[in-house]
């Protein structure tokens, strides 16, 4: 689903969206008089995020026939090539999964085998039974959730302000937010940790989630600005004319339209925190350790317990992989948004 479509979904409640709206938009763009309904999809179009996946409603052939391979034989070869590269690409993770089902001794057998000689859940039992592991999962979830909420609460109003009142300070601010992306975490991790300690937040999920928000906030602002930009100003003005206050218009009209965008931003913020390691390493000791740190610690603390490590890594990764597969369209939209807008 492209952003255009995501926005269309949001707008359905307010204006009757036309069937095949995105396709129609081409014509509407030239029409001198545009209806409000005609503008919504056009606004989606201005993002220029192509219908990446499931371009169902877009008519075929507008953009793509040019690059699609014609000949059947060429296509067959390309399919084989694609399948081969996907197998190669997917293999490392499959191997991790297979290994996690081996017996602890077989995990470090020489020479290694791809499939387990004997399927067992022993590694999982070992890994999850270890003290601190279940707690680390709770910490990871807590940290990621707090960081996501914080990121949204801060980025949505900021992005709205930047796109609606296009002031100079807004532009400077968005550039500054992008520059913070370049700050190496290792450079600010220690000062940040000592700051947290001085306000009594050392080794808490709150401190860590604040640190994670410094990573996800610039990205969130960037993403949300793109989403807000896609909402036509007229829509909001129409609502104000109809008797909504500025805030009411924002709450009842604009926010529902960008709800898809908010979801995308939330996913990114969550993933950024869930997978983060360096801040977690620097800022947590025992109480608030997140799972990535625990996985890394397996290496030193308990000798080389490969089996448990693979099992824990699998348990940690699978939920987010599944999440991605379910929500992939939104994620794709979010990832390409900033770049393609160029």
């Amino acid at each position: 689903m492209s952003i255009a479509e995501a926005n269309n979904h949001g707008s359905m409640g307010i204006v009757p969206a036309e069937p095949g709206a995105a396709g129609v938009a081409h014509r509407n763009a030239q029409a001198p008089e545009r209806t409000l309904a005609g503008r919504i999809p056009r606004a989606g179009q201005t993002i220029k995020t192509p219908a990446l996946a499931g371009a169902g409603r877009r008519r075929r052939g507008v953009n793509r026939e040019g690059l699609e391979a014609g000949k059947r034989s060429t296509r067959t070869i390309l399919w084989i090539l694609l399948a081969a590269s996907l197998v190669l690409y997917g293999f490392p993770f499959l191997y991790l999964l297979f290994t996690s089902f081996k017996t602890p001794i077989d995990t470090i057998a020489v020479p290694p085998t791809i499939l387990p000689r004997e399927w067992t859940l022993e590694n999982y039992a070992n890994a999850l039974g270890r003290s601190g592991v279940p707690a680390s999962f709770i910490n990871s979830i807590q940290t990621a959730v707090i960081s996501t909420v914080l990121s949204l609460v801060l980025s949505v109003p900021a992005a709205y302000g930047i796109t609606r009142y296009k002031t100079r300070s807004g532009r400077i601010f968005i550039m500054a937010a992008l520059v913070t992306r370049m700050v190496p975490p290792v450079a600010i991790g220690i000062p940040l940790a000592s700051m947290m300690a001085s306000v009594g937040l050392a080794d808490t999920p709150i401190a860590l989630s604040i640190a994670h928000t410094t990573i996800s906030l610039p990205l969130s602002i960037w993403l949300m600005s793109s989403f807000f930009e896609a909402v036509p100003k007229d829509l909001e003005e129409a609502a104000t004319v109809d008797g909504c206050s500025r805030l009411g218009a924002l709450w009842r009209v604009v926010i529902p339209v960008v709800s898809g965008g908010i979801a995308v931003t939330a996913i990114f913020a969550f993933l950024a925190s869930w997978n983060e390691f360096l801040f977690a390493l620097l800022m947590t000791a025992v109480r608030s350790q997140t799972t990535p740190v625990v996985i890394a610690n397996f290496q030193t603390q308990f000798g080389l317990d490969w089996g448990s490590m693979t099992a824990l890594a699998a348990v940690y990764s699978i939920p987010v992989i599944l999440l991605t597969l379910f929500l992939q369209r939104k994620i794709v939209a979010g990832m390409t948004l900033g770049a393609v807008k160029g």
Partner: protein
Amino acid sequence: MTPAALFLAVFVAYPLFRLISDSFFKISPLVGGPREFVGLDNYVRAFTSPDFVSAGWRTLAYTLVVVTLEFALGLGMALLFTTLGRKSQVLRTLFLYPLMIAPIVAGLLWKFLMIDNFGLLGTLLHQAGILQDPNQIGWLSNPDIVLFSVAVPDIWLTTSFMCLVLFAGLQNIPGDLIEAARLDGARAPSLLFRIILPLLRPVIAVALVVRGIDAARAFDTILIQTNGGPQSASETMSLLIYRTMIRFGDPGLASAMGTIYLLAMLAIAFVAVTTIWRPGKDT
């Protein structure tokens, strides 16, 4: 906007300020230990330290390797998906999965493939008859190649991102343009280099800059695979700063290194953006 600005000011700008001010002090690693103002001494020490200089070169080499390979592979996959059209959509989804894996996990699973003795890669190459001995190539133990080996998980993780962004860019190229070029007798290579790549330029620029910044900060994957070893052969800037700070307990020196590193990154990113991206120019 104000709350967000305030947040960034407190939690990014202030620590940065601390970092820069710390870099002028000699600081005892003990909490509440003495601080002594030493001026630019830490900077002098950083630039004269062979560790620092070689970590800088390694970071550069690592970033170039990661971004180049990732770009080549990502472009290849993006073209493949584009030429196959909509029917490859399901596979495209599958191709995304590494993006969701924690770098620490990616580092771990590649370590598992490349480690000596029970690593699968050497064994498979041996069974395929390419290597005489499964341990012939010490992926992670040979200082000459380890920097490339530790780059593999990073490449593996984010080729999907490259592919995704480039694929999106490719969809925006008007089909008529390609058709017209074909009718004029353009063959695949000139189509690629004369039409597709120039049109993709802004997209490519963003993708390269974003990924370049990330690769230059790489930490997780390297830490778990080699911890910078053997003989510091895979110690990039992030790892060196981390080690200086934590292991050697020299926050002053580490802050100076961090400051130099940050400035270098800003400078490179600025040059990259202005030369490749050229915003405002209608490409």
